[in-house]
């Protein structure tokens, strides 16, 4: 039977010290306790001992300590308990943290939302029909007119029923929209624009730059001319600006000293 020597492990030092004594007391009884299922054959035992040999040479002649089954069981149970405790502690800590965060978010959200009275009015007012731009009402810039149709066939996207509410409140007249629909619409419009851009100017199309296009004639003349946009006027604008500023300051300085 292999006796486990107390090795440097994750168990804290205090626990190690405690464990030091019980195994030595019950060494004799450990011989009887093969219930732990430790391999008693030499093949399994030898590698462990070999590792030990490299580290602790002086402890080689000592007999391995004996461990009783009960003590080992108690040890294991204690360990389990400790682990369970720590996990429970961690869980509660996390729970508390989450609770605090949730409260913080709710508070922030409350701050962001419109005041309660306006929200009430929004939910009670019904959906409107096609909007006609009237000269009187000053609508907000985001204008999406939606109508709820009865569709016979299915449509891939969910029917975007947006409740558009007009003239909430006596003095102000504005339009409330659901932002989720707006994002979806924008995403599709972007995808459509990307499709057109890709099919006309994307890879695989035979496009060339304006400079090359306009310079094609110049290349075939009997006296070859330069390209249409030979000079790059946008080169070094920062440098040119700095130079101009420096020149102005230098002139002023020169005027001052010459006077």
């Amino acid at each position, binding site marked *: 039977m292999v006796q486990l020597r107390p090795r440097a492990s994750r168990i804290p030092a205090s626990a190690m010290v405690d464990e030091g004594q019980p195994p030595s007391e019950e060494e004799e009884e450990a011989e009887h306790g093969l219930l732990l299922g430790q391999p008693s054959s030499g093949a399994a035992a030898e590698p462990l001992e070999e590792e030990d040999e490299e580290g602790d040479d002086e402890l080689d002649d000592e007999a391995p300590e004996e461990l009783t089954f009960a003590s080992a069981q108690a040890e294991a149970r204690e360990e389990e308990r400790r682990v369970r405790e720590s996990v429970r502690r961690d869980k509660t800590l996390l729970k508390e943290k989450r609770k605090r965060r949730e409260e913080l978010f709710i508070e922030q959200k409350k701050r962001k939302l419109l005041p309660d009275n306006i929200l009430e009015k929004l939910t009670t007012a019904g959906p409107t029909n096609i909007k006609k731009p009237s000269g009187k009402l000053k609508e907000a810039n985001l204008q999406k007119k939606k109508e709820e149709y009865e569709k016979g066939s299915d449509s891939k*996207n969910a029917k975007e029923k947006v409740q558009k509410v007009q003239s909430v409140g006596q003095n102000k007249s504005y339009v409330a929209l659901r932002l989720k629909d707006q994002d979806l619409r924008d995403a599709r419009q972007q995808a459509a624009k990307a499709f057109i851009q890709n099919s006309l100017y994307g890879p695989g199309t*035979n496009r*060339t730059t304006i400079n090359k296009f306009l310079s094609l004639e110049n290349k075939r003349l009997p006296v070859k001319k330069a390209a249409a946009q030979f000079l790059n006027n946008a080169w070094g604008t920062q440098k040119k600006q700095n130079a101009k500023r420096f020149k102005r300051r230098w002139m002023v300085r020169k005027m001052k000293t010459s006077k």
Partner: protein
Amino acid sequence: MGEFKVHRVRFFNYIPSGIRCVAYNNQSNRLAVSRTDGTVEIYNLSANYFQEKFFPGHESRATEALCWAKGQRLFSAGLNGEIIEYDLQALNIKYAVDAFGGPIWSMAVSPHGSQLLVGCEDGSVKLFQITPDKIQFERNFDRQKSRILSLCWHPSGTHVAAGSIDYISVFDVKSGSAVHKMLVDRQYMGVSKRKCIIWGVAFLSDGTVISVDSAGKVQFWDSATGTLVKNHLIANADVQSIAVSDQEDSFVVGTAEGTVFHFQLVSVTSNSSEKQWVRTKPFQHHTHDVRAVAHSPTALISGGTDTHLVIRPLMEKVEVKNYDAALRKITFPHRRLISCSKKRQLLLFQFTHHLELWRLGSTVATGKNGDTLPLSRNADHLLHLKTKGPENIICSCISPCGSWIAYSTTSRFFLYRLNYEHDNISLQRVSKMPAFLRSALQILFSEDSTKLFVASNQGSLHVIRLLEGSFKHLHTFQPQSGTVESMCLLAVSPDGNWLASSGTSAGVHVYNIKHLKLHCTVPSYNFPVTALAIAPNTNNLVIAHSDQQVFEYSIPDKQYTEWSRTIQKQGFHYLWLQRDTPITHISFHPKRPMHILLHDAYMFCIIDKSLPLPNDKTLLYNPLPPTKESDVIRRRTAHAFKISKIYKPLLFMDLLDERTLVAVERPLDDIIAQLPPPIKKKKFGT
């Protein structure tokens, strides 16, 4: 004529937007053109191809399809998923209906004009019923797998052809189901990696479907059997648009290389009755993609990314072979985008989303005729004013003293006060502009900068008095009778008593500002007004029309002047009447009441009313003869129209003071240099 120093301005970085869709209306001979920035312009082809109305654009509105319905109703649909109807009388958008199919790629009106089909991003084809005041959703057709990029009705209204990616479907309108699905070959230069996009379809009454696709092919399909009949490979790049004439004996296609091909139905041999489609004429008037074509009974119309609108009359269809049968290329705007403050030598440039204020440079050198004088102080970019919101700027103006700037979009009106101290400039916005000022079509300040005149799109004219930091609404002239024919133009007399406004079918109205009432109305003329101005001292109203006629009307006398009657009796020189571009600005010399200065895109002219008028035999354009000629000859050939073509293309020309002119030019090369990339052309030897 006098000697002038000319400020030649080339720093107006004006780039027109590319043309995306074109729709021709046969009954009224009008053309609706939509551009990539969302603007929709209406050209009157019988009024010398003049742009009479336009609807300002919006950033989110990417128009993809435009069509006319019965009764002069104009609809457009775009990538924001909405179908928009335009009100041609009130010059605003009547309403916008969401189609709930995602971005809309194509739209077609049924042959009887009562139904509307849209092809959407999710592959659905939706049918709408056109009711007298709006459109109503009827039903969906069978949903297809990929986006529907082109649609066309059969002339009888029973079937519809829809072009998508890699295939064309033919639908039966009654049931809404797809009858045939024709697969298009992807083959493009031997490589079949890219998907074949069907950019356009056309349906003929004998059941032939013509499709144009991105592989450069024009294909003829038989819709009864769903098979390919004929295949023409006409280009190395995409063929992007197709338009069939009403008689169905010719159609036109536009390619991405800028070439426009004309196909005609000709008989196989001279006496056989069998006919076939033959590609007859190629036209190369564009440098970039031709994304829209239209076929009128006598002309082929094309427009594309290179921003030109080209109208090519077909010689065999034109009855009278005169100058009307020449090619027309519309490149420059037909209205003024620049306003000038004479006192401070400032220019205000109007772009689609911002305004720029520049101060002109100055020179101290002198020279003789034709010299270029060096600048002692360069032109200064004083202000770059961006508009808030996604809408385009409709019109803008700067007051003659330079302290007020006003501009208008569809939903708001902005008025700014400028303060100059030493070399700095500060801007203050005047807040709380009244709601009735928005959607202004034309803004004008009075000569002493105390009053602001605004013409709104409802037809009314507002007069506002400007005070130090605020304003006061003085009066509103209600719209007079008559339909709206073109965009309103305003002119105010330098002494501040008279205000002239044009744009309705009733003629040009002249209002008395001191008494705030209508003074008189100039009799209407059947061509729209392109420019309007009131002369100082004499208070003669000079009106230029789109057929190049110039009238002079005396406001105090309420009748045409003697000079105007004389020239109408004699008629203008034939070369003057054959000019392509409309006169966009008229101005006067403060010390010489007999001179009228006007300009169009390719010339500027000083009309001297004291000199004799030219008849058709004299040379119209005679620049200064060499001094070797004797005085007698010079006196004999001198006539009233002094034309100079030195500065072109001109966007604006005005008299700053007695000895200075300012000419704002926009060379075509500078516009082309900033366009999107064109298709590569391979030429031998390069």
